[in-house]
């Protein structure tokens, strides 16, 4: 009983690079589909990014059945049902999500509704509850952060029950992901930095949390290399195509890593802070990452120290604790540099969180599912202590 069991699964076809989007119709044909429902949001549509998708369909034999551009920042069951209705009404046969995490999650939810023939997502909450083959689904991320294009998770807010529903299933993974640098070029510096730090958090937590395994480690390490080398370039000079694509690839690799090895206390704190105070996920992760690493230092210093060649400019020659502390300091330094570059917050108080919100955030933190995968235990008092430090 000495070898821990692990699973790894990522069947997503990755098409990454210049003009990657032009391959969408070809991949649709490979999947036996002809008519796509595009799911996006006002921001993406307003930035003119949908035109790249439309251009790809010209002369292809495939067509766009409809474009849904009303996805809100936090997806809900009402929106999901609306998308599913549109899919059926326009007789579409596949989904193409163009956007960030919310668009991906909305599409995943709508796909469950359409494929399972239901309008009640509640009964699919939890793990492995989707029993039917879902409709073909292609993902076009417009941020380099969430990694939703390669994750098997969807989180959707239930407006009727006032709660968040989480779904995990291998079936939720898209069939293909298209990383086209054109799609992230117009991201403002602050969002570039926040989503990039989100991706870095995915990779770092995937590397030291309990479900880590040799396969996910490989993805996490590659992700950290790419992100550390490109996050400041992409933030400072948004039209640097190479930096943008490297960040997109880094976020995807981090997504594969954490979809298979999960994340820990940093995400629990970020989910809770988002839930109570609507702090953007990437911003919260950026603030909490060094504190989360510190919280696990005693149990994981050797593992975190392995990242020192990737995170530290000059890794110390001492023991694992010194190296791990250097990693934590390097992440703090990076956040400070990003703060100077684009105003990315480094303290909770700068995100609109009030000190009186902290107990409520701590309460939600200890009920967050990611905490299972955190190496160290976390009590309410300890969560509150971290929040106070981060404030």
């Amino acid at each position, binding site marked *: *009983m*000495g070898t*821990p*069991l692990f699973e790894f699964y990522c069947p997503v076809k990755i098409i990454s690079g210049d003009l990657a989007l032009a391959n969408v119709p070809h991949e649709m044909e490979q999947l036996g589909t002809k008519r796509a429902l595009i799911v996006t949001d006002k921001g993406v549509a307003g930035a003119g990014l949908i035109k790249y998708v439309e251009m790809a369909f010209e002369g292809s034999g495939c067509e766009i059945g409809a474009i849904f551009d009303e996805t809100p920042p936090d997806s809900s069951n009402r929106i999901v049902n609306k998308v599913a209705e549109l899919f059926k009404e326009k007789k579409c046969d596949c989904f193409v999500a163009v956007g960030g995490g919310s668009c991906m999650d909305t599409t995943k939810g709508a796909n469950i509704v359409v494929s399972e023939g239901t309008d009640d997502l509640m009964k699919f909450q*939890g*793990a492995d509850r989707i029993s039917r083959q879902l409709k073909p689904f292609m993902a076009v991320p417009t941020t380099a952060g969430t990694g939703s294009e390669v994750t098997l998770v969807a989180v959707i807010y239930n407006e009727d029950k006032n709660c968040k529903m989480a779904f995990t299933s291998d079936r939720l993974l898209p069939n293909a992901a298209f990383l086209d640098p054109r799609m992230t070029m117009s991201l403002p510096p602050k969002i570039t930095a926040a989503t990039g730090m989100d991706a870095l958090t995915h990779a770092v937590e995937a590397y030291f949390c*309990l*479900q880590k395994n040799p396969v996910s480690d490989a993805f996490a390490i590659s992700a950290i290399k790419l992100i550390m080398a490109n996050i400041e370039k992409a933030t400072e000079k948004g039209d640097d195509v190479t930096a943008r694509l490297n960040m997109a690839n880094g976020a995807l690799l981090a997504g594969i890593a954490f979809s298979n090895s999960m994340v820990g206390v940093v995400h629990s704190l970020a989910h809770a802070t988002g839930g109570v105070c609507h702090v953007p996920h990437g911003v919260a992760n950026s603030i909490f990452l060094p504190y989360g690493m510190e919280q696990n230092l005693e149990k994981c210093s050797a593992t975190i120290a392995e990242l020192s060649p990737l995170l530290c400019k000059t890794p110390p020659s001492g023991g694992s604790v010194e190296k791990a502390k250097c990693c934590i300091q390097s992440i703090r330094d990076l956040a400070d540099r990003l703060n100077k570059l684009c105003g990315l917050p480094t303290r909770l108080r700068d995100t609109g969180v009030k000190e009186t919100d902290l107990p409520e955030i701590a309460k939600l933190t200890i009920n967050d599912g990611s905490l*299972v995968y955190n190496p160290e*235990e976390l009590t309410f008092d300890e969560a509150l202590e971290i929040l106070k430090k981060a404030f």
Partner: protein
Amino acid sequence: MITRRHRKHRCYISRFSGTGSPEGERTMKLSISEIFNLDYGIKKSIASTALLALSVTYEMVSKKSRELKDEISSWEDGRTFALGVLKDGPSITLMKKGDRIKYLGKGIQGDPAITIYFKNIDSALMVFIGLIGAHTASVQRRVIVHGDLSKTMEVMRTMNIVQMYLMPGIVLKKTFKRPPELSGKQLALKAQIYAGLVPGLILSGSK
């Protein structure tokens, strides 16, 4: 295959005196790792008994433990949760009633808010005989959860409290992220739980 690590952790769960051996009395020893080679029926019986013991302990601990009462104080009355083994393995259902947890019986009763399933009987046994903790079973994807994840975390915390009283200290040290240090009062309650376990199993066995 028995590895070095297996040998290191080998402990004997039962001993049978053999008879009729020309060499005299022979002792048959069954190591923990060999339990997984037993017939499914035997493994199912062990898992059923372990689940029943968990249920009985839930009821007893929730009567007397302040920390468990505090933990479930925010739960809605009537919240049910179940624990079982896929696909046709044993299962139990429990419910919050007042400030206590009540054992509803074997099987999945009604439509529980939370159901925690072990993917197979071997994974369940690993937890029940103390080879791995509940969180490790989750981490290794040996269990799946149906229902709200946040409520599941609440259920898992209560399960940790119950296991604190049910499992021997040596197992807690091995299976908990942070092994609990029991106060004198808690140790006294643990002794009461152990004393009441067998009668409790007999009384609840018919449910």
